[in-house]
């Protein structure tokens, strides 16, 4: 029996599915932001904050933040289990990664609703 307690979903299948869903969400978000910047060459603060004051944009952004958090957790967890063979080093790196992801997620939410 292969065990795993620090992976995102505790299951290879759910991690695999989450990785693909989050990739699609991130791709859509990236395409949208790039298109928005291209169609607004003289972008000013009001247009930018106007975009992010709309509820649908906040939902879309939060979705992208959660997606990148899950995507990073799953991806970096995989990298640590491939390359870090010392248990102390691996668990330490995983703790730092998960903590970092948490900080960025809360910080992102604060930016979205703080302005």
């Amino acid at each position: 029996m292969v065990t795993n307690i620090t992976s995102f979903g505790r299951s290879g299948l759910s991690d695999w599915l989450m990785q693909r869903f989050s990739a699609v969400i991130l791709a859509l978000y990236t395409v949208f932001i790039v298109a928005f910047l291209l169609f607004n060459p003289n972008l000013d603060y009001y247009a930018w904050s106007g975009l992010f004051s709309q509820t649908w944009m906040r939902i879309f952004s939060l979705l992208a933040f959660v997606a990148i958090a899950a995507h990073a957790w799953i991806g970096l967890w995989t990298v640590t289990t491939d390359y870090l063979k010392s248990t102390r080093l691996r668990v330490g790196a995983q703790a730092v990664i998960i903590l970092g992801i948490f900080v960025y997620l809360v910080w992102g939410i604060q930016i979205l609703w703080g302005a």
Partner: protein
Amino acid sequence: MSNLQVSVYRYNPETDSAPYMQEFQVDTKGRDVMVLDVLHMMKEQDSGLAFRRSCREGVCGSDGMNMNGKNGLACITPLSDVVKNNKLTLRPLPGLPVIRDMVVDMGLFYKQYERIQPYLQNDTPAPAIERLQSPEERDKLDGLYECILCACCSTSCPSFWWNPEKFVGPAGLLQSYRFLADSRDTATSERLSNLEDPFSVFRCRGIMNCVAVCPKGLNPTRAIGKIREMLLADAT
């Protein structure tokens, strides 16, 4: 015609403190022989050279090795396929412990093969004659049953290099799917539940080295994709 220059990995743990490469000059008389023939010519020069071989026609899977950086069976690989600039470098299969020279310890590889339970399991009463399959059901096993367990694929797979104790590897997963796809096997859900962790199947990153090196032309990556589909269908 100049002699073929062959560089061979040598290591005898009883006498050598570290592995080294030994240079050989081999006169192939201009013929396009197989790499295994070259190994035999070298063994005539140095009888201490150790390598595995048996059927010498690509059926037994004993002489899997790394030839100029690519895994394959020495007995069915002609020099013209691998030799560049009249040089040939031979190393044992990567990622497995070396017992001596070209001979590796296949223990981990067989352990992963054993883990997928490579035998038919059926809990229904045995019929008077054999368990029948339709031609369509039998067709599903094509491209799966032909594997000879030479380990060329698994030892070319970086995911297997990093986690050989947890990742089943392409050879084991191809065989796993061979039994998952078999209409006579009734242990499908037990087999699937042993594979859904993040390592056994899902450590496959689709690098496809396995497909590139398989001497039998099989496609473990496709089989792994089919296992993923079965896991998804079973769990959602």
